[in-house]
């Protein structure tokens, strides 16, 4: 969790230094969710999430270099610099992104679960979405299909209580997102407690495999605004934010558990923190040294089978021949 926290704080600084452009949605405050989740899953399970995907990528086995480089649009990024913050993917770990449009990942998640059932491989698909996406029609389409066919899908509502600038009670008639599956069971858990999250996911995975899909609503909080373009303070009070930091911060909670439970010394924690800082610095250094994608990459990966097609340039006279 500390690695994720430092990575997101570093991204904040990079964005302000204009090394990262466009959209950047940070995850700090919500770390316990993906860490607890991965503790209950295998890499043969599938995960798909929204644009707030930096931490998810790392927890699926991605490196800090891949995240920083992608955010800075460099070749060593997870998507070779062509996706950006919202499009991190890691195929070998069954991490399916990284989607830009709110809620569009939910039918995809149903498709991942469909594939698990089709192949009978014993895996589950975890489909993460936010309280904002919880009002999307396609989510309910996905619920219906998953429940109809008993697809092994866990629909995870990461409820950080704000859909960009709109509080949940101003957007949803029913902000009890775990109940909105109607015929599909749902459970709520404290998303700031990494152990609670792990238990919840373990239960949900078992349920999804044995009985059918369910919703898991994780109660969490993001310290940053919706994105780096949003100060995050016009629709919520600074008191609220600092209150969560003091009382429910996931890292603090974990530290307290470790220290109070005698599971670690202060020096152990300091060692972890030093190690993380080193990892971050290394990853960042490598990312900064990573080259920008060459112009040929503009034309790469348009089609899986490019067929030697000829693409016309801006003024139509330039002809780019794609590989066979």
């Amino acid at each position: 969790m500390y690695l994720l926290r430092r990575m997101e704080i570093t991204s904040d600084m990079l964005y302000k230094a204009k090394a990262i452009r466009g959209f950047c949605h940070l995850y700090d405050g919500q770390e316990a969710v993906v860490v607890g989740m991965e503790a209950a899953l295998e890499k043969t399970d599938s995960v798909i999430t929204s644009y707030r995907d930096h931490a998810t990528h790392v927890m699926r086995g991605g490196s800090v270099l891949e995240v920083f480089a992608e955010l800075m649009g460099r070749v060593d990024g997870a998507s070779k610099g062509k996706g950006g913050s919202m499009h991190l993917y890691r195929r070998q770990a069954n991490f399916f992104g990284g989607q830009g449009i709110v809620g569009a990942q939910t039918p995809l998640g149903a498709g991942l679960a469909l594939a698990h059932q089709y192949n009978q491989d014993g895996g589950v698909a975890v489909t993460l979405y936010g309280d904002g996406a919880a009002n999307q029609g396609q989510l309910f389409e996905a619920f219906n299909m998953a429940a109809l066919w008993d697809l092994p899908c866990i629909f995870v509502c990461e409820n950080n209580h704000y859909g960009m600038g709109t509080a949940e009670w101003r957007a949803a008639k029913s902000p009890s997102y775990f109940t909105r599956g109607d015929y599909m069971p749902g459970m709520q858990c404290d998303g700031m407690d990494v152990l609670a999250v792990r238990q919840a996911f373990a239960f949900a995975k078992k349920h999804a495999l044995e009985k059918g899909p369910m919703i898991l609503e994780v109660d969490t909080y993001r310290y940053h605004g919706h994105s780096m373009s949003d100060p995050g303070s016009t629709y919520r009070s600074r008191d609220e934010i600092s209150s969560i930091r003091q009382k429910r911060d996931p890292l603090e909670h974990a530290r307290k558990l470790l220290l109070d439970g005698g599971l670690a010394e202060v020096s152990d924690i300091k060692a972890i923190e030093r190690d993380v800082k080193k990892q971050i610095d290394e990853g960042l250094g490598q990312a900064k040294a990573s080259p920008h994608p060459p112009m040929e990459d503009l034309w790469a990966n348009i089609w899986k089978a490019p067929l030697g097609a000829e693409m016309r340039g801006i003024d139509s006279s330039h002809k780019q021949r794609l590989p066979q």
Partner: protein
Amino acid sequence: MAATVGSSIAVQRAQPAVGCSAGRAAIAPAAPLRRPAAAVRAAQRSLVVSAAQKREMMMWEALREGLDEEMERDPTVCLMGEDVGHYGGSYKVSNGLYKKYGEMRLLDTPICENGFMGMGVGAAMTGLRPIVEGMNMGFLLLAFNQISNNCGMLHYTSGGQFKVPMVIRGPGGVGRQLGAEHSQRLESYFQSIPGVQLVACSTVANAKALLKSAIRSDNPIIFFEHVLLYNVKGEVHPGDYCQCLERAEVVREGTDVSIFCYSRMRYVVMQAVAELEKQGYNPEVVDLISLKPFDMETISKSIKKTRKAIIVEECMKTGGIGASLSAVIHESLFNELDHEVLRLSSQDVPTSYAYELEAATIVQPEKVVQAVHKVCGARGLVSA
């Protein structure tokens, strides 16, 4: 599968067509189908053949056969859509297949195009090869986000990690008084999406052969059928013939003018050609087949020969396939043209229910004849 020995119609290869890169030389271009069907059959009966001869059937049966063959060949191929399973497909393309392959592979979806299109994309990302059927292409407007962002662009935005080997198929076009919302031409809207291929079938033979290729392709293919062509009769290619998705078909070789068309407009054009032949014209007719990317090799070869081009499309005048093709032709073949490209398209109006108004909305054979008169001049000036 055995080849029909000595046939002068396109010789089929018993290898899967993997795109067209390897196959461009191997697969002979479809010969102009000018011999009457009966003569073809008589010629074949006299040959020694060991396996399947060409068989006559309707287009829906041909599509069904192609689908069946590909599903048998590859267990990752599956079909999902409304009423494709138990009902057998609203145009019978999957008739009875669920009994053979089960309900997982012929998946009856609820009516949620956005949802099941996204589901198909997700399944494709894991390595399955789903075919998503839109009961009418027009309904896929609801799935536009999934088609554009997730289907078309995922290969690029993931830096090449994920492929989306889907086929999105269904009938589009103007039918018989189906009303505006059920008479749409979605190829106009989809053509700008980067990362997809657009293919339009038109005959029984190419319907089956193109569908087989589309299913085998690793690219996402949007496969346009036409509401009025499902009962067209014709012959399928024998054996495992797969047609190149990127190659246009020369329907009729000629010298006076190149007429480019696709889907049902091929028949409208050929109706006009019957009249034009009597008047002494010798038009060349090219069925585009590949709406994206255009087969510029065949298109430019034709234009360089005839120096005149007419596009006949069912898309609207504004922003259709013809508009794009016209721009490409003017930009790249300007000096090969003796006349600006004439484009016959549907009127920019919603398709009326009333019969005469509907007929006036789309291109009729008379308009094609008039267009040829316009570019070629009156008879007497054109050499046969």
